[in-house]
């Protein structure tokens, strides 16, 4: 899922300073699962903002909505009938959702209520960890299901490097060496020969280096 963390309330209040009438939009997708931008979080943030603004002597009107997904046009369009009645939209979806609202409602400022994190997994309740950087050329079948791009701090394809000591990465003693994990896993799977099948270099042209990416599925158009 795409993870995120709430923005500090003081930062949000500062963003909302010019406005008295806004839409607060949540999303039922990833941000609901990581408890940062779902229906419940919309209710809590809306109440918090109303209380803070009223205590400051300047009330704010907030329309609370929660879309199935803020990254799909059919759901975003559900907001169109009333958007003209509001001065701004505060979105607590991921960065993709916030931008999609800005694209669709060009005369309404779109403001971020969360800081979008990474593509990750829930390791336990309240703890998420990064697992994928969307490099566009997956090699997990050769690396025992452990991603060298994400799990190695340098995204190496021929690790472990000299900074790996007893399975720990030099960047942080809490971070396991991704390549040590790969070697250990390949050994356990009796697939160590896969280490030699990795490309000597990785083509990053499918990753972010070529600018914003686009997927076109001709079979679906």
């Amino acid at each position: 899922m795409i993870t995120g963390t709430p923005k500090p309330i003081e930062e949000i209040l500062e963003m909302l300073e010019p406005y008295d009438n806004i839409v607060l939009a949540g999303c039922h997708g990833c941000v609901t699962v990581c408890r940062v931008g779902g229906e419940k979080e919309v209710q809590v943030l809306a109440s918090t903002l109303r209380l803070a603004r009223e205590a400051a002597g300047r009330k704010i009107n907030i329309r609370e909505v929660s879309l199935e997904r803020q990254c799909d046009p059919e759901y975003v369009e559900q907001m169109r009938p009333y958007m003209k009645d509001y001065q701004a939209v505060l979105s607590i979806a991921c960065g993709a959702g916030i931008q999609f609202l800005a694209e669709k409602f060009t005369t309404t400022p779109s403001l971020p209520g969360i800081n979008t994190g990474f593509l990750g997994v829930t390791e336990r309740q309240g703890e998420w960890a990064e697992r994928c950087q969307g490099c566009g050329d997956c090699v997990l079948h050769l690396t025992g299901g452990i991603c060298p791009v994400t799990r190695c701090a340098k995204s190496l394809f021929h690790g472990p490097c000299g900074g790996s000591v007893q399975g720990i990465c030099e960047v942080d003693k809490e971070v396991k060496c991704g390549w040590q994990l790969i070697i250990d896993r390949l050994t356990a799977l009796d697939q160590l020969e896969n280490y030699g099948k990795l490309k000597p270099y990785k083509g990053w042209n499918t990753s972010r280096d070529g600018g914003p990416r686009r997927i076109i599925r001709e079979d679906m158009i």
Partner: protein
Amino acid sequence: MLPCTGRIDESLLLKAFENGADGVMVIGCLEGDCHYVSGNIRARARVERVYAILEKIKIGPKRIRMYNLSAGEGSKFAAFANEFVDQIREIGPSPINLVRAGKAQVVTEKEAT
């Protein structure tokens, strides 16, 4: 009607303040004695989150408190209720109620965060 404090979430507690409460007291069963296993533990975590929110927006964290009691502890309930009411009287009306009553010592936006 709530079957268990585990049903209480942060938005319900904040709504009480929006609706003009000066203080909110949450009373759950004794810890380890929840009919739904961990409802009162969850409620406590949510009360703590609201406590942090009220502190950040200068409404005052002392306006919310959770107590744990069994249904047989009537006199203890009365004592806790009196204690909490005294605490709220001492703090005074919530800034929201002061603004609504027009007696506002308005909290500036900077102070509200």
